[in-house]
Structure formats: C-alpha cells, structure tokens
C-alpha cells in the first residue's frame, strides 16, 4: 500500500537551530550473547531538542535508546561496544556510576508503570532516594513536577489517591512527572504513547514541546507522523540482512522527511516499506 508522504503539520516549522551536543553515540554495537542487535551507530543528541528514533519494528530503536542510560545492563548476556558520551564523558567507561547516570538520564516507558502508591509518593520517590526528607521541599517539587507534566489540575485535590487509579494517559504523565522530579538532563522515552488513546497522545505530544525547554529528549516512536510532528531531529534505523539494526540516516526532521538522502528512508517515509 502506498501512503501519501507524511505531511508536516507545521509547514512553517523552522529547520532546527543549532544547539550544543548533549550526548554522542559513537560506534555503538549491542550484542545479546552472540546475536548482534545494533551495529555501529554514530549519532549526536542535541541539547534542548527532541530527537526521534524511527524505523521498522525489530530494528533495535528501543535497544539503542536503552544504551543511553545503561538499562541494557539489566539484561543478562547483553553487551555494549563503542562509546556513549554524556557531556563528553563515556558512560560505559570503567568507574562510571550507573546510578548517577540513570539519575541524569531519566526514562519513560512504553506502558505507564506507576508504583502502586499514592500520586505524591510516586513523584517524591526519586527525591527521597536523594535523601530529601523536608516536607516543604518535597511538596514544592512534587507540585512543580506535576505542573510541568500537565497533571496538577487533575490530581491537586487528592494527591493521596493511588497512582494506579488514574487513567492511562494520566498515568503516563505521572511517570513523566516522576522522571522530571529528579531534574534529569536527558529524558528517554520509549514509545510513550503507544499504549494510549489519541487524545491522551496529543496531550503528551504538546507536553513534550514545553518540556524540551528544560530537558533534552530522545524519543522512540513507531509512528512516523508523530516523529514528524514533534521532533527536531530524526534518526532512521533499519534492519540489515543479519537482523542487526543500523543507522540509515540522521538529520533535522524537516530535511529528513522532505528531502531524504537515502533511498531507503524515502521508501520508508512514503510507506513503500516497513
């Protein structure tokens, strides 16, 4: 089936303005035991911009995203080669503190995963880990984070309700609030809207535009239109014959969608493949 080329809903969207590089993925390959899931990806992540990873399913977008805060460490047999620089420092270098990296590079997951505790405790979770016990500070930061996640109006009259009791979209915004409460520098989002209905999806997309003023955002999406709508830079990944994911093209979103350099990218965004 042939689709119309993806329309950018904001045609006046300016080409991304240059910005400092927050993270650099340099020659990264990821192995699961002997299987190579990602091969040799080079990619910059710009500060206060939204970078989207798109590509056919199974091409390793999520795997690549998870290398950025070392969540792959959790999977037995997973191994990362190459470097991932955060502010110029390799997060995979010996002596790096994985706890500190994950605090600086937060993450929001595909399915909302609030803890089975109150909204307040959910947001305060990371703060309490950092040893903040003072009620006044906690109150202030919880409110600030919930406001930033556009959830405050919905929950302010009952912060003690269970986080699990919220609707799916609200749960996801709660997870965003929880992530931004500890003031990470980068927020990774792994298909954050794939489990949500269209209205909740729109709310979150709008939210991202305000969040990027303070945070650097990397988002994986299976939805090209979404990438086109919200991101400043897009990386298109694909799968090689040996099922290893690799980077096909990276560039400012507008350019990548309107004037792709690679044939494969063009095929993909016009719906001829994938």
């Amino acid at each position, binding site marked *: 089936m042939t689709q119309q080329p993806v329309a950018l809903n904001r045609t006046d969207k300016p080409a991304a303005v240059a910005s400092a590089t927050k993270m650099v993925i340099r020659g990264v390959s990821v192995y699961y035991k002997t299987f190579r899931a990602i091969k040799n990806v080079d990619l910059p992540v710009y500060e206060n911009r939204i970078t989207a990873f798109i590509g056919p399913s199974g091409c390793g977008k999520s795997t690549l995203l998870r290398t950025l*805060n070392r*969540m792959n460490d*959790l999977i*037995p047999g997973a191994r990362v080669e190459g470097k991932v620089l955060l502010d110029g420092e390799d997060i995979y270098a010996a002596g790096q503190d994985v*706890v*500190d990296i*994950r*605090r600086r590079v*937060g*993450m929001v*997951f595909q*399915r909302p*995963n*609030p*803890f*089975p*505790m109150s909204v307040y405790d959910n947001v305060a*979770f*990371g703060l309490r*880990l*950092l040893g903040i016990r003072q009620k006044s500070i906690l109150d202030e930061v919880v409110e600030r984070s919930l406001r930033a996640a556009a959830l405050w109006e919905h929950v302010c009259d009952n912060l003690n309700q269970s986080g699990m009791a919220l609707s799916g979209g609200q749960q996801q915004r709660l*997870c965003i609030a*929880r*992530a931004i409460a*500890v003031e990470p520098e980068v927020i990774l989002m792994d298909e954050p809207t794939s489990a949500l209905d269209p209205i909740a999806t729109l709310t979150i997309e709008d939210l991202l535009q305000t969040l990027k003023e303070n945070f650097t955002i990397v988002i994986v999406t299976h939805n090209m239109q979404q990438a086109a709508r919200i991101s400043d830079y897009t990386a298109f990944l694909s799968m090689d014959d040996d099922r290893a994911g690799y980077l096909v093209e990276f560039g400012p979103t507008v350019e990548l969608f309107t004037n792709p350099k690679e044939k494969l990218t063009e095929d993909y965004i016009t719906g001829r493949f994938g």
Partner: protein
Amino acid sequence: MAAEVRRVSPPHCLSASSRLSFRSSFKRFSDLLMQPTSSSSWRKRLAYYFKHGDVLWWTLLTLSVGVVLVLVLWIAWQLWVQSAAARHAFGWQFIWPWAKPVWNPALDKFQAWPAIYGSLITAAIALVLAVPLAVGIAIFLSELAPEWLRAPLNYMVEMLAAIPSVVYGLWGIYVFLPLVVVPLGKALAPLGEIPGLGVFFRGPVPASGFSRLGAALVLVIMILPTIAAVSRDVLQAIPRSQREAALALGATRWETVWKVLLPYGQSGILGAIILGFGRAIGETMAVTMVIGNSAGGGYSILRPGYTMASIIANEFAEAVSEMHTAALIEIGLVLFVLTFLLNALARWLVVNKTIKRA
C-alpha cells in the same frame, strides 16, 4: 446429574458443546425432550452416550470431584463428632489461656492451653528467625542470582522441603540439640533473671537439649523452604516494568527491592509467611522428637513442652480412657481449624492479591 445431562448434546456439535455452560446445554436437552417428532432420535442419542461410555466417564469424574470436596468436610465432621465428650466436659475452658492448666489422664481432667501455647511460641520464634532468612533467599533467587546459580539453588531449597520430618528429628536429637541448642540455651539462661520478660527464659535447659527452643530452631529450617519458595514466586510475578521504573530513577538494586518490589509483593509475602506459620504449627514428628514432651514448662522457651501436634503424636496411641482420646481429638480439631483459617488466608493473599494482579 449435571454431568450426564450435559453430555446429551447432538454428536455433530460435540466439540463446540464442550465449551457450553451447563445451563445452555440443559436447555438444549430439554428442547430435545420437547420435540415430539424427534422422540426416537433423542433416545438413540442417549443410547449412544451410554453405549460409548461417556455417562460412566462423567459419573467417575463427578465422583472423584465429590471425594475431594467431601474429604475436608468429612475430616472436620469426624473431629467434631469424636471430640464431643471433651467438648461437653470442658467447654471453652479447654482452650482458655487463663484457665488452670491441667493434663491428668488418671483423673480425666484436661486443659489444652499449655500445648496451644507450645505451638504458638515455637511457631512464633521459628517465624521471627525464618522470615528474614526466607525473604533474603527469595530476593537472592529472584533478583540477584546469576543464571547458572539459580537452578541449583532452587533445587536446594526444594530439597530442604523434601527431607522427611523424622530425619530432621533424628538429626535434631543427636546432632543439633547437643551442638547448638544446649550452648545457646545456656547463653540465654541469664535472661531469666530479668523481671517480667524473664519467664520466657527461665532455665535451666535440660542436658539433652530437649526444649521449646530446640523445636523452634528445627522448625526454622523446616519452614524456610516454604516461605522462601512462595516469596520467590511472588517476587518473580512482579512485572519487570516496576523494576525498570525504579532503576531508571537512579535507584540502586537494593532500593528497587526494598522500596518497590517488597511493597508491591507485600500481601503475597505476607501470605507466604502465614503459610509458613501454618506449616510450623502443623509440623509433628521433628517437633515431637526434640521438644521433650512435657505438659509443664511454664512459659519458658528453654524448658521442654508440648505442641498441639506433638501431644497428639505422643499420647494418642497410648490413650486409654475415652475422655483422654476425645481431648486429644479436640486438640486435633483446634489444630485443624487454626491451620484451615491460616491456609485459607494465605491462599487468598497469595493467589488473589499478588499473582492475579501481576
């Protein structure tokens, strides 16, 4: 009856009918009965099922299910009936903690509190020691153990549960009591001097080591696998996303376990603990072999005593008078009711609140 009726559905829809509920197939059956024209054909069908054995099959299935369902009730009923003499003679005084403790087969006077106390105190001590160990094991098995270590360790936990109770008892008498319990008892004996709390530690611990403390410590080993295995299953049933959420916020692995996983699985782990409590109270042989079997002992954990199970095991075969037998069976009834309630609660906590939610 339900079974036979249900089978009487036309052959052509056999496979579909196996999914139908009883009500709808009953309707089908009655429809068949109503149709005057097909009266001969439903007879044929009925004959088919008789001839091909499904009626017999479902009768057997229903009977077996009936056996399973009836057994528990029957056991309860028998205990109730057979303990009638004791129940009528002693009433609630029999299990009342503040009644005068007496266990005198010669006079046919019985009061069960010392045995109930023995069960509760040994099980309680066993729990206090076993729970941290078991939860630690569960955490290690579900969260930390590398792949290659997991299977052998799981095996070992299962093995601990598979060793027959009498073997624990034998080992307890000849190895564990003299080597561990006697020295430990001596070390604890000075606590008997403390006013108030001292009643629990009034020594001396017998030279053989037979004591409530010995029973409690053997119980620790015996209930450890139960609590550990169920807690491990509870932890493993928690979705991975919970772990990821915590770690992505910069939690350490311990913080993930302590602040996220344990609260998430708390009701299931509580269920595991209650299950362990039930096991400890019902455990018979090993306890009988190391507790010293004495109706005295006051409240001290360093003295020999009885538990509900051990007093039955020790005295029942030699009980001569009808009242003695009835009293022991009434203890069995108390034991039954207590373990039934504990197990039902544990089952509800583990199955409904943890496994299903996850």
